């Protein structure tokens, strides 16, 4: 295909051609970045967490009397275990993605104090008997807490419990002692120290950072007795079959409300907790999808409109070309090639622009670098879009009969 005549004709329509190129460039730049943002959010929403999310139900019980919890918690748990379909029930201080975070920072040296720069900030989960089974934790190394550790752990007036055994996630263990086994090692926050008795598969923190997922799993489990919990334990967790979870949630909420008339019981399935945590993110992702679709539609309309106009303007020339021997295919090809050239210029500019926007977003917003393949991906999408939208007008052009050449206007 000879492209010189196309260039000659585009030179005559410099402004419209430039506009199409700019429109494609902007669309390409926005598309690349928007799709990248969507993919980031989708991967955030799907952050894995090694607990039985499908079958887990939580009921928070707040406003209880700290002096009575020693007898109330075992009684409540016994009642919850009586609900049909409940395989295990336990109590804990918080859940992954519940936004109820209790953070603390520890170091690996005996003289580490809380304000040390090199300390690692972790989320603390206090958990009662059978908590590992109720959550569905996977112990990778060592063991979960034994009966003595659970029974002896209590809060005094200080914010950390009087115990010396902890279980931490694999990610936290890697952050404290990279490349080493954490079993038997000790974390310090003077005057407190805790020895790792077990390592579990990664569980998310109550709040996660979306920019630094490496820190999203720094969680440490502490044993806690009902008697010594001083109000720290308020999440009753129940595990059952996924299809039973809604019924279990309702019955458990009702049962706890009946047993504790002075307190406030609120039930949620774990899937609701996760959905609620990421609700903002998923609505933003849907908004971005909507923007991309409408933007591509507008760009396509622009191409259709302008090409239709060009076709209308060149009816006579098309007729002449047809009269002197050009086939319908040649006419089609002409417009398709023209669009290909414009799209190529557009996406070339667009890729540079997309890269620039990404750099700007990295500096001003919580964004990471866009992988390179988004650029050719966006370019390909706009090429295809251009070809698809030029197809209709090009076909109309090809259907111009050669006899047009013999008529004046």
């Amino acid at each position: 295909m000879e492209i010189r005549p196309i260039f000659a004709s585009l030179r005559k329509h410099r402004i419209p051609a430039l506009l199409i190129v700019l429109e494609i460039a902007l669309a390409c730049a926005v598309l690349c970045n928007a799709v990248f943002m969507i993919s980031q959010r989708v991967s955030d929403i799907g952050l894995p967490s090694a607990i039985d999310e499908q079958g887990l139900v939580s009921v928070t019980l707040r406003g209880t009397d700290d002096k009575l919890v020693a007898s109330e918690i075992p009684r409540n748990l016994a009642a919850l275990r009586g609900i049909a379909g409940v395989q295990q029930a336990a109590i804990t201080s918080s859940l992954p993605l519940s936004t109820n975070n209790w953070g603390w920072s520890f170091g690996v040296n005996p003289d580490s104090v809380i304000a040390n720069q090199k300390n690692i900030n972790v989320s603390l989960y206090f958990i009662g008997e059978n908590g590992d089974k109720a959550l569905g934790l996977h112990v990778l190394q060592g063991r979960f807490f034994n009966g003595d550790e659970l029974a002896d752990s209590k809060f005094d007036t200080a914010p950390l419990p009087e115990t010396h055994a902890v279980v931490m996630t694999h990610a936290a263990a890697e952050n404290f002692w990279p490349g080493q086994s954490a079993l038997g090692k000790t974390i310090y926050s003077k005057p407190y120290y805790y020895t790792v008795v077990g390592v579990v598969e990664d569980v998310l923190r109550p709040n996660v950072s979306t920019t630094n997922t490496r820190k999203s799993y720094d969680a440490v489990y502490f044993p806690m007795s009902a008697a010594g919990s001083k109000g720290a334990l308020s999440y009753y967790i129940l595990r059952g079959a996924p299809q039973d979870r809604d019924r279990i949630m309702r019955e458990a909420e009702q049962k706890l409300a009946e047993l504790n008339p002075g307190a406030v019981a609120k039930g949620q399935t774990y899937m609701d907790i996760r959905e609620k945590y990421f609700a903002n993110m998923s609505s933003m992702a849907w908004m971005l999808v909507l923007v991309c679709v409408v933007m591509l539609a507008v760009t396509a309309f622009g191409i259709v409109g302008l090409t239709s106009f060009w076709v209308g303007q060149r009816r006579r020339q098309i007729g002449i070309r047809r009269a002197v021997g050009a086939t319908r295919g040649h006419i089609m090809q002409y417009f398709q090639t023209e669009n290909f050239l414009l799209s190529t210029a557009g996406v070339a500019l667009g890729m540079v622009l997309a890269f620039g926007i990404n750099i700007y977003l990295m500096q001003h917003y919580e964004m990471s670098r866009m992988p390179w393949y988004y650029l050719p991906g966006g370019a390909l999408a706009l090429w295809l879009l251009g070809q698809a939208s030029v197809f209709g007008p090009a076909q109309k052009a090809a259907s111009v009969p050669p006899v047009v050449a013999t008529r004046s206007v």
Partner: protein
Amino acid sequence: MFGYYLDLALRSLKRNKVLTALMVIAIAVGIGASMTTLTVVHLLSGDPIPDKSGVLYFPQVDPENPPRADHTEPYPAMDYRSAMDLWNAHRADRQALVTSSSTKVRASDTGKPPLILSLLSTTADFFPMFEVPFQYGSGWSAEDDARHSHVAVISHDLNNKLFGGANSVGRSLRVRDTDVRIVGVLKPWRPTPLFYDPWSQNFSKTEDVFAPFTSSLEINDGNFQPYTCWHVPDDTRHLQNADCVWVWLWAELDSPAKARAYASFLADYAEQQKTMARFATGKDHVRLRNVMTLLTARGMVPDDVRLQAWLAFAFLVICLFNAVGLLLAKFLRRSGEIGVRRALGASQRAIFSQCLVEAGVIGLLGGFFGWLLTLLGLWLVRQQPVDYAHLAHVDTAMFFATFATAVAASLLAGLIPALRASRVAPGWQLKAL
């Protein structure tokens, strides 16, 4: 002439309905998307208390000792001792200590189940300072603060929930384990953002129960949570002596001179604490910001919303390019007609204004449909589970802004095509006819 141009414009728009529709849709979609996000940004970055935002100040000092190396800004809260020292100095026209905690609340005589609510502990000046509107009763007095009175003010929502909206002043409310007397019921009040709580991006509701700082520290003892600590507190239940920040101080300073005086008082205090070795950093980490500067410094507009605004802007530009291209096509297609008019004596200016009128009509149509799309977009935002969703509605300013933007955008888009059209050489076009 304008009437004639309008007539011509309408005729020309009718002649090629598909092209007209494409242009109107392009402008409408661009306007709809950008106005939706602009409205959200406008509402989120708005002034929560326009009459007084210039005289309400948020003093900050930095009690962290030893300091963290990467710490360049003081925390958006104070430790109890600094807050009390500054409050007791009474250097401001009005001042309020504020902190919030969660507690169990029930109205014993209504038989309704207990609720877990946020309790705002503050001092008497809070209500006049922040222009809090009352439905029934009033706030408490400075004397109530000093006497540790068991009184409370409740929100409109809570009054509806517990007392069915009746005047509940004088009735009793059980906050945790203590009975307090209701002295005031608020009208619906929701400053947006919730500026007096600068801990985080916050478009949530106000607290439901307000009680004197002094007495609520006793009533809800042990339920106060620190923002952060730099030493392990000996007793987490009593933060009064702990090295933790958890209290906010607000000051009303009616004139710039008073604000300057207060700033130097604050700096002196920090320096004095530094010489006493209680603070590690003196006046370098002293801040005295008014409401809007505080909101800007804390970045109250969520990142997502700002990103959306950029996106919408890029979108509008794409739509504009689109409109320019299509208008150009449309005008130049009529080159013959324009040539005849020029030959008959129409000036370049006349052609130019005729084209602009046509562009303006498209803009108005685009604006109208764009406005409908904005309403749809804001409705979509309201359906989102975000804490600012309730804000999303069109106000008159944004309504007019929508039309102004639409017409301006289409006139801008019509500029190049109109210029090109008015430069059509009449002779050349006539020859071609």
